[in-house]
């Protein structure tokens, strides 16, 4: 692992402490569950965001089972689970927990947290995204969110403040995209694991620091040495999310001799390829980028053909040799999309492997997991 990623990880690990101090100084803290809840708005209102996207540990998804269905994905269950185990450093003092209401699993978890009397906020994201009606719904939801933030912080979200935040956000994204471009090379100077962690770190830092850090990383790695064995198979990892802390599959793939050079994930990663326009109605610009410009998440409908087009572009641009579909257990919609992708990629002769995780990474589970990934990598070498 590079030194820069170690340093950034340490900075981001300190984020809960920083937030606690900020809270003690009168700043409002807003936890949120993903990119449909724009952190640009949260900062512009004078609050501080904290992304809830932890995973990769078996106990948190288990702990809400007295309240929830067993057959729900472990990431959704972890949203409530970390707090129930007393392992969430921010939820106990968060002033608002803003959920992006995209699907049933997250929807029910948000209701569990309401049941637990936590300060839940719900931001509706209609999944029938091609209708003007639905687009307007999301834009209105953003306006309501802005108003709620203003009420929470007693601070006006002016265009000027929002523009500053959008510019910072775009700067982070541009930096990430420049690093990501380096991954198109024969032997990239950053690993897939590092790139994913870098993304995660940027969520848990002040945006100006995040932008500076990403730019510094680019400066350091742009002429750097390749991190892989020359000619190693090139992998695209796709699916719902590589949560913060859930790095087993990427690491095993890279330890098995592959280079993970691209991702297509719905959560836990910045939409760095798509900038927010700084002209005109800024809230709507955020909405458009999240809802229309970026490739649609799996839950949107119809989405899978659009998503496959995006995947094909990535396969071409990053010269992908094989796709690992990283699926969370009981994530039923992703499971269905996986079947379509297996069929379509099969028609293109692109090797595809579905890998499922329930965040159970015990010694007993790791053996078969490693064997499967190693075999896949071996088969495409």
């Amino acid at each position, binding site marked *: 692992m590079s030194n820069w990623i170690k340093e950034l990880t340490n900075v981001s690990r300190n984020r809960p402490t920083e937030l606690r101090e900020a809270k003690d100084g009168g700043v409002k803290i807003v936890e949120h569950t993903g990119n449909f809840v724009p952190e640009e708005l949260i900062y512009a209102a004078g609050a501080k965001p904290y992304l809830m996207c932890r995973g990769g540990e078996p106990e948190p998804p288990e702990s809400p089972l007295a309240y929830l269905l067993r057959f729900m994905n472990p990431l959704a269950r972890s949203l409530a689970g970390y707090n129930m185990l007393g392992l969430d450093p921010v939820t106990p003092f968060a002033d608002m927990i803003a959920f992006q209401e995209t699907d049933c699993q997250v929807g029910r978890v948000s209701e569990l947290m309401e*049941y637990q009397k936590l300060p839940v906020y719900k931001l509706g994201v209609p999944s029938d995204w091609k209708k003007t009606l639905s687009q307007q719904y999301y834009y209105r939801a953003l306006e309501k969110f802005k108003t709620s933030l203003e009420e929470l912080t007693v601070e006006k979200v002016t265009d000027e403040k929002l523009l500053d935040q959008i510019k910072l956000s775009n700067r982070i994204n541009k930096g990430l995209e420049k690093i990501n471009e380096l991954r198109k090379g024969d032997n990239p100077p950053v690993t897939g694991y590092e790139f994913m962690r870098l993304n995660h770190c940027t969520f848990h830092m002040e945006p100006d620091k995040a932008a500076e850090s990403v730019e510094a990383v680019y400066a350091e790695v742009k002429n750097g040495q390749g991190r892989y064995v020359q000619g190693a198979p090139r992998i695209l990892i796709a699916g719902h999310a590589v949560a913060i802390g859930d790095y087993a599959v990427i690491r095993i793939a890279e330890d098995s001799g592959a280079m993970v050079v691209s991702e297509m994930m719905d959560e836990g990663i910045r939409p760095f390829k798509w900038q927010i326009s700084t002209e005109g109605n800024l809230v709507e610009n955020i909405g458009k980028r999240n809802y229309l410009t970026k490739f649609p998440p799996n839950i949107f409908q119809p989405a899978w053909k659009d998503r496959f087009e995006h995947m094909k572009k990535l396969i071409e641009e990053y010269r992908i040799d094989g796709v690992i579909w990283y699926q969370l257990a009981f994530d039923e919609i992703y499971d269905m999309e996986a079947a379509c992708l297996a069929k379509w990629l099969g028609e293109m002769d692109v090797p595809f492997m579905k890998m499922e995780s329930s965040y159970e990474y015990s010694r007993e589970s790791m053996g078969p997991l490693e064997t499967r990934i190693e075999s896949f990598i071996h088969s495409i070498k």
Partner: protein
Amino acid sequence: MNKNTYREFLEFVAFEPEELETATEEWIKASQILGLAEEDIRYAMEEYIPDNWDVKFLGVRKIVGAVIREAIDLTKAKDYKKDGVKVVYGILPAILSNYMAIKVSGGDRVYVGFPDIFLAKVLNAFFHKLDPFLENAEQNGMSYGCRHCALNKTRITAKMQDVIPSPDIIWTWGLNCDEGPKTDEFINCYFDDDWNVEITRIPHDTYWGDCDSDNEERIDYLADQLNHSVRVVEETVGFKVTPESLKAASTATRQYAMKIAQLNSMCMKADPFPIGGNVLSILGSPLSMPYNTGLKHMEGAVDILIKEVKADIKNGVGILEKGAPRVGVYFTPYCVPWVDTIFRENGVALGFSLISVVTKKAMMKPMKYKDDPYRIVAEQWLRSAAGGNMGYEFETWVDKVETFKPDAMLMGFFDFDRWLGAHQKMGTMYVEEKTGVPHFYMEADFWEDRDYSAEGLRTRIESICQVAKMNKKMKEMGK
């Protein structure tokens, strides 16, 4: 093949003598399409239906008959389509009156149905024969281990194995769940380009305890969604769905709902309990899925059943002895009808289903919208228990439990449903605390029993029955 078996079956489910000749031929054809062999028909007639359904009532046999009629009609949908009839499907849960309005407007020019739930109902409630549909889907993308919904698997196989035609349009809903509408995208992407989909959704973004129908912006949004989708359906089928037909459909549904409410109320007040929970549960099905053949057969059967039940109540006749505990259910799993039977074997009656009863309190609240049919329908849905957030839904459960006064409540049977199943454990705690009525949660599946066999659940059911009896006794003793 012995033709008499099929004819005997239709006689058993109270087809009229004069229709038997034609109906038998049609039933034989339909059975072949549905994958029912002669021995399946005989098994259903001689064992499965008598064991699990109250066939002593003519009304019940006629209900089974009405379902069989609709199943026969469903297997003709391919022929209808060849003859130029437009085919419109939907999925559960949806606002039924919209589909009925399409049928009212289109008449014989259109076939309207929810094929998956109908197939699941016919095949598992009466023949215990849905498994081949499920297994096929599991070999084609719906991984067994991922716990997908049986209805969606059934829809996939029904199309894949040519039981049903591709629809001219499937108007698919995601007001509750994600997997239902996404299954239509799956069918379209995976194997059927002709599977034409129109989708209506609304995010789950209201707050604990708020009544969604008090939110005018939400009503407007849903009404606009409905209006939009109706326009798309109209363009596809080539005729207008008139506001009058929507009103007529709403009225017919309400009228049927009143009869079901009357029967439920009558049964819950009676001692001994007069009829099984399976029947009370399946009677609500025309409120959640359209019958292309119309409501007349179901409604006629219900009218007969009401009279028969009234007579039994008057004569003090019931399915169990007087004083036996009765248990309310989230939704009595009539597609796994042996659950009701095991309860009964243990001296406990399954009574009303939360999902299919309305209370006076809910009905008395005046509707805000009177003229705009889309707003009327949107308001109805957003006021319904399933149309709201968890806190609101739990309050409706409290109201129902307090109204029908069961000795215990049984929750569960929706382990596959990340919306309708995901909140039931919390509901169990919440409503028990508010009402004092003991609640039990049982992880199982409403539509099929491969993972939860009778042997597997029997001990659990026996324990629930023992506790229900003990509680009732203690209540009677004033403890």
